[in-house]
């Protein structure tokens, strides 16, 4: 279904692959026979603010890492539209399962952006409540969260929370590389067999660390879905409007009991894989430049400017706002407390363990012996 229709959209944009697009790289609104958005002016401005803010926060985190304040950082640079578009498409009752890069989705969920910084600073390993936040803990083992999301969605169905507008949907984020993991394919199977209310949201940013997409597949990733018995669709992941439209439709479809969808958000990782990575070893500058021209923020700005929805004052105000948010984030990161001595022994088991208790006690006594030596 989606394939034929999205082909038409692609025809208008020869250089682009076959995907759903509502906003071209140069800021032209185009229509799509199946997908549309009806944002108010205020909402459109809000999307712009989101995009700019998540990019700025991300840049701040990168800077913090460079200055030694974070151990590592996985930047979302270039993927802002994929994350804000899908993140804003979630309804309040929906549940998201991220990888380690979904800072933009987290922001759209209304979650304090400081939340995952402890992990990257090395003071904890996440430590938040996924249920209270409706946002899973960052998952580092590639693909594992797609099964968790599927199980959660099976539970939603078991609870009878599908079938209407109030139904709950689940979204599982993962990368192009992740599609090669057995777990992701098993998640497709369980989701399909149990008709779970889930959207598999693959950010195809063209790379798994250094490996280009061709190391994972020889056909477009969205096509993977049909053989598992549910629809797959590719969207321009640098187009926040199209990403929103497609994700919203898939989530609503799921909440109404119509089962899973795979969305391939076609985008690009503009930066390094993480701050530990050196992409110059494996990709050419010209490729990055090509994608620069498809920047997700620039195109929205052009569009909003051309329609008079925003002006320079607004742009300046948003920049200032984002900068301020970034400064606040920085300040708070610097005060994130290191783990207390011996804190590592906590929360190994809900019911505790005498063995851990004993080791904690020995640890305490051992360290007290040094204290004694010092005094």
């Amino acid at each position, binding site marked *: 279904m989606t394939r034929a229709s999205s082909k038409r959209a692609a025809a208008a944009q020869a250089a682009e692959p076959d995907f759903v697009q509502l906003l071209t790289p140069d800021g032209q609104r185009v229509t799509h026979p199946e997908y549309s958005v009806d944002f108010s002016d205020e909402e459109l401005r809000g999307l712009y603010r989101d995009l700019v803010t998540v990019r700025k926060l991300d840049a701040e985190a990168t800077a913090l890492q460079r200055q030694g304040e974070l151990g590592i950082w996985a930047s979302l640079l270039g993927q802002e539209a994929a994350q804000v578009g899908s993140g804003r498409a979630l309804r309040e009752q929906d549940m998201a399962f991220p990888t380690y890069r979904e800072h933009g989705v987290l922001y759209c969920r209304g979650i304090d952006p400081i939340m995952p910084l402890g992990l990257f600073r090395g003071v904890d390993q996440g430590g938040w409540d996924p249920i209270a936040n409706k946002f899973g803990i960052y998952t580092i083992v590639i693909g594992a969260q797609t099964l968790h999301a599927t*199980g959660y969605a099976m539970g939603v169905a078991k609870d009878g929370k599908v079938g209407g507008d109030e139904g709950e949907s689940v979204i599982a984020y993962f990368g192009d590389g992740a599609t090669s993991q057995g777990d992701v394919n098993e998640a497709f199977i*369980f989701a399909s067999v149990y008709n779970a209310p889930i959207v598999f949201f693959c950010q195809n940013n063209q790379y798994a660390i250094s490996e280009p997409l061709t190391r994972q597949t020889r056909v477009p990733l969205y096509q993977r879905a049909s053989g598992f018995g549910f629809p797959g669709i590719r969207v321009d992941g640098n187009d926040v409007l199209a990403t929103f439209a497609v994700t919203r439709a898939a989530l609503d479809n799921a909440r109404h009991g119509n089962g899973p969808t795979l969305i391939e958000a076609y985008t690009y990782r503009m930066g390094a894989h993480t701050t530990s990575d050196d992409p110059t070893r494996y990709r050419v500058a010209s490729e990055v430049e090509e994608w620069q021209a498809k920047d997700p923020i620039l195109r929205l700005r052009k569009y909003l400017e051309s329609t008079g929805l925003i002006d320079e004052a607004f742009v300046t105000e948003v920049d200032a706002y984002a900068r301020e948010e970034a400064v606040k984030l920085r300040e708070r990161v610097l005060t994130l407390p290191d783990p207390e001595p011996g804190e590592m022994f906590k929360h190994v088991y809900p019911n505790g363990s005498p063995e851990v208790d004993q080791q904690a006690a020995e640890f305490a006594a051992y360290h007290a012996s040094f204290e004694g030596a010092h005094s």
Partner: protein
Amino acid sequence: MSETLTLGKALNLGLRRAMEDDSKVILMGEDIGKLGGVFRITDGLQKDFGDERVIDTPLAESGIVGTAVGLALRGYRPVIEIQFDGFVYPAYDQIVCQVAKMHYRSRGKVKLPIVIRIPFGGGIGAVEHHSESPEAYFAHTAGLKVVACSNPSDAYWMIQQAIASDDPIVFFEPKRRYWEKGEVDTSGSLESAFPLHSSKVLTSGTDATVLAYGPMVRVALDAATAAAEDGRKLEVIDLRTLSPLDMGAVFDSVRKTGRAIVVHEAPHNLGMGAELAARITEECFYSLEAPVLRVAGYDIPYPAARAEEEYLPDLDRVLDAVDRSFGW
């Protein structure tokens, strides 16, 4: 109310009672529905609780455990049946990296009350991968608790305790004992039952301590009977909990007897016996008359069925170890 039950039936009743007690308890696994599992441990449960609670899953162990994590996040209490010991490994990543670590990762905000049932051990004349004893792989993993039942009464109570516990638990069932019978007193409450993470002295003796769990408890008891004929009194302890280990009774016993023998089917190298030997030696150093000896599977892949008798620890090998201990 005491009944004579096979170990398999005791598990079945324990699962049934757990499902009655808490509607969030769900069972997941391959062939556990109409078939009732290849060992019939879930016999009749899908009929009575429906296929929303007794779930025949796709043939994918990682998928089973991974979706169980999600179901637990959603508030369910999944009880997974792994069809045979040798088929748990595709799920190993989800167990070690997710089930074991999510509580820690979340600083205690997430609980994953998942029970992973594994029929384990040999002695049933099976083909490859159907007779393994992988307990050490799990006991070495922080964040998991690991238990093994050895008799119908424990099976009945321990499975319910494991399901009621908020800890993720790998629950080993001695498959070759499924058909052995024993008395089970099904009256009383879970709370008043013998605690899950406790070892139990089965026979008291003064000459040597024999530690066993799961299918080897029977062998240890038989050895004690045989040794008694030679005038040697063996104290047999059923460990029951492999992680955490409950060493109190063990240390008391070894301090008294001065000799300890550990028996398990799993390979010798880095099996539970290694840890027990290390701990006992550290704690009872001056009481030991001989080093802790291990009667275990050999450090070879589990052999073909017609060689398994040679492989498996038996009465004679336990008695031989007792002799060797006395000869030290």
